[in-house]
């Protein structure tokens, strides 16, 4: 019997994630890599790596669904769907009772209202780095810290300060002012997390906060922001084991569902010549 496989690729503004599933929905391979300027070349490279891990060839993948900010730059994809729909599907696969998903990625923050695994409504942050992963990266860089250490540092805080502005540029100035006034580093970092959480909580309240609330995206790995978000929303916030992969898993699952539904209807799967050729924007 011929086995069929599905790939979901989430080309985010900062990280590219790819997942390969089998027809039972088991994850055979997952790869994450920094998104550079050349989306198309990267998509090919990440796909090759994932195929290598899964021990498959590109021709064995029945359906590739691309999502994320760079979704149109995946030449071998069969379909493009927004990260809004894919995140909702991915999160619901981890937490079936999810009603509000919050995703804070490198470039934006999103709130997703979900019922029975389906996206009903959404809110997205505007074109501004405040309240995103980029905000934390910029501040961590200014402080000479690694962004992944910020969460642990903030947990030592006893008197977090208020960072009044979440504009990245002005917040950076405030951080410098606090530090020069002798405020402990952990209290400043805790204040930054609070500023992000407060901004995102205000945004997602437009969708009404109902349990389960799930938090995904790169920033969900920061325990300080998770705690701050729980404080601002006044409820528990669930974080999946791999918070960065919800979009890619959702994409692969939607692809799988489409193919399975087509097979159930007795349709013959369209065969598509799929090649992982090098493509580039730069000549």
């Amino acid at each position, binding site marked *: 019997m011929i086995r069929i496989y599905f790939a979901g690729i989430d080309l985010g503004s900062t990280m590219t994630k790819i997942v390969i599933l089998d027809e039972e929905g088991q994850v055979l391979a997952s790869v994450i890599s920094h998104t550079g300027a050349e989306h198309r070349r990267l998509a090919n490279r990440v796909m090759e790596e994932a195929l290598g891990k899964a021990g498959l060839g590109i021709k064995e993948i029945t359906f590739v669904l691309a999502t994320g900010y760079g979704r149109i730059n995946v030449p071998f994809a069969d379909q493009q769907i*927004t990260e809004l729909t894919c995140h909702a599907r991915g999160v619901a696969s981890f937490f079936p009772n999810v009603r509000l998903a919050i995703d804070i990625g490198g470039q934006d923050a999103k709130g997703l209202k979900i019922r029975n695994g389906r996206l009903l409504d959404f809110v997205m942050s505007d074109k501004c780095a405040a309240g995103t992963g980029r905000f934390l990266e910029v501040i961590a860089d200014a402080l000479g810290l690694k962004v992944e250490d910020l969460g642990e540092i903030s947990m030592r805080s006893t008197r977090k300060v208020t960072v009044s502005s979440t504009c990245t540029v002005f917040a950076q100035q405030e951080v410098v002012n606090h530090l020069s006034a002798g405020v402990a580093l952990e209290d400043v970092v805790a204040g930054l997390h609070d500023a992000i959480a407060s901004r995102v909580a205000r945004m997602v309240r437009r969708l009404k906060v109902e349990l389960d609330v799930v938090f995904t995206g790169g920033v969900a790995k920061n325990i300080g922001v998770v705690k701050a978000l729980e404080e601002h929303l006044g409820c528990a916030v669930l974080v999946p084991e791999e918070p960065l992969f919800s979009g890619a898993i959702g994409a692969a699952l939607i692809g799988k569902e489409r193919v399975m539904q087509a097979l159930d209807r007795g349709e013959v799967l369209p065969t598509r010549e799929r090649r992982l050729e090098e493509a580039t924007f730069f000549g």
Partner: protein
Amino acid sequence: MAAEQSKGLARAREVYLDRSRRAKELRAEGKKVVGYLCIYPVLEMVTALDLMPYRLFGDMREPITEADSYLPTVVCPFLRSCLDLGLKDRYDFLDGIITCHICDVGASLGGLWDYAVQTPFSHHLDTPHTLHETSLKQEKAMVVGLKEALEGFAGRTISAPALRNAITLHNQQRALVREMYDLRKPDPPLISGVETVRVIKAIQSLPVQEGNQLLREVISEARERRDGPRKKSARLLLWGSILDDTALVEMIESLDANVVMDDTCVGSRGFFSDVELTEDPLDGLARYYLTEIRCPRTFRSRDYMEARKDYMKDLESRFSYLHDYARDWNAGGVILESVRYCDTHGYEVPGVEDYLDSVGLPRTYLEHDYTEGALAPLRTRVQGFLEIIG
């Protein structure tokens, strides 16, 4: 002339892309061109004096630079762009300009234009913002004032037959626009949202008779065409502030959706009712320009007073026409759009959203910066919306 050889949709595209060309040609032949801001200036009187009305637009593809010396950056980018183009001599072929009290920034634009751009003739209409009887009296006074000012500028008076003729011509234009909009009712529509923006902008860049001729050509071409828009999953109604560039509609129509109806001021808003030919034509003009244009800049107190104790009735009285549009054009979703800092539309959005929710019409709201590049991130929101309603 090459520009006059093409017809219909091709001609509309040409005028859209080089909209001042015809005005400059006519000016070289001795015709005076009068620019106007927004859809409240009484164009019938401009036409009756054999002047050419020419609507002022901004340019979202041109970065605003000069206007920042006159207007703060946190006000309507469309009006900032209009002033910017004036300061860059892009409106140097205008002999006159009519501005009106659209909003506070719009009102100040007239004074700033006089101060910094200095078009030879200018007149400002203090169009009332409510529909009380006294507002109608004031609007009539404004219409009389404009008539006198235009007559002084043109050096002749408006004869009654000329004004009646102009009213008829502009009503014909309104009827033709409605006829063109009817071509968007079939599925797929016979004319796309992008083409509609081009045509509407083109007719506001031509004398009314030429605009009417263009509309007739477009209508007959669209009826016969085989290369019209293709059928897509979603049919959308677009509501909102000024859209004088095809970019946003182009982005929406590049997805699996056709924009089949609009309620914007470079769209249906200025064309969906007629001026009544009253005994004193100025009465009909005053009534039309005050009460018949449904823009959020006018507080529809007449409707509101009857429904003010019931929020949903109030919404129904103000926005039920949107439900009618959605039904008649078979639109399954509504995109609300506004340029950033447009308080006039921004404050209207929650009410429109509540109304659309009450009648079960899915909607999403986009706010944009009036720059072409800033529209790209909105693509995900529109596509996400289509995935939800699809």
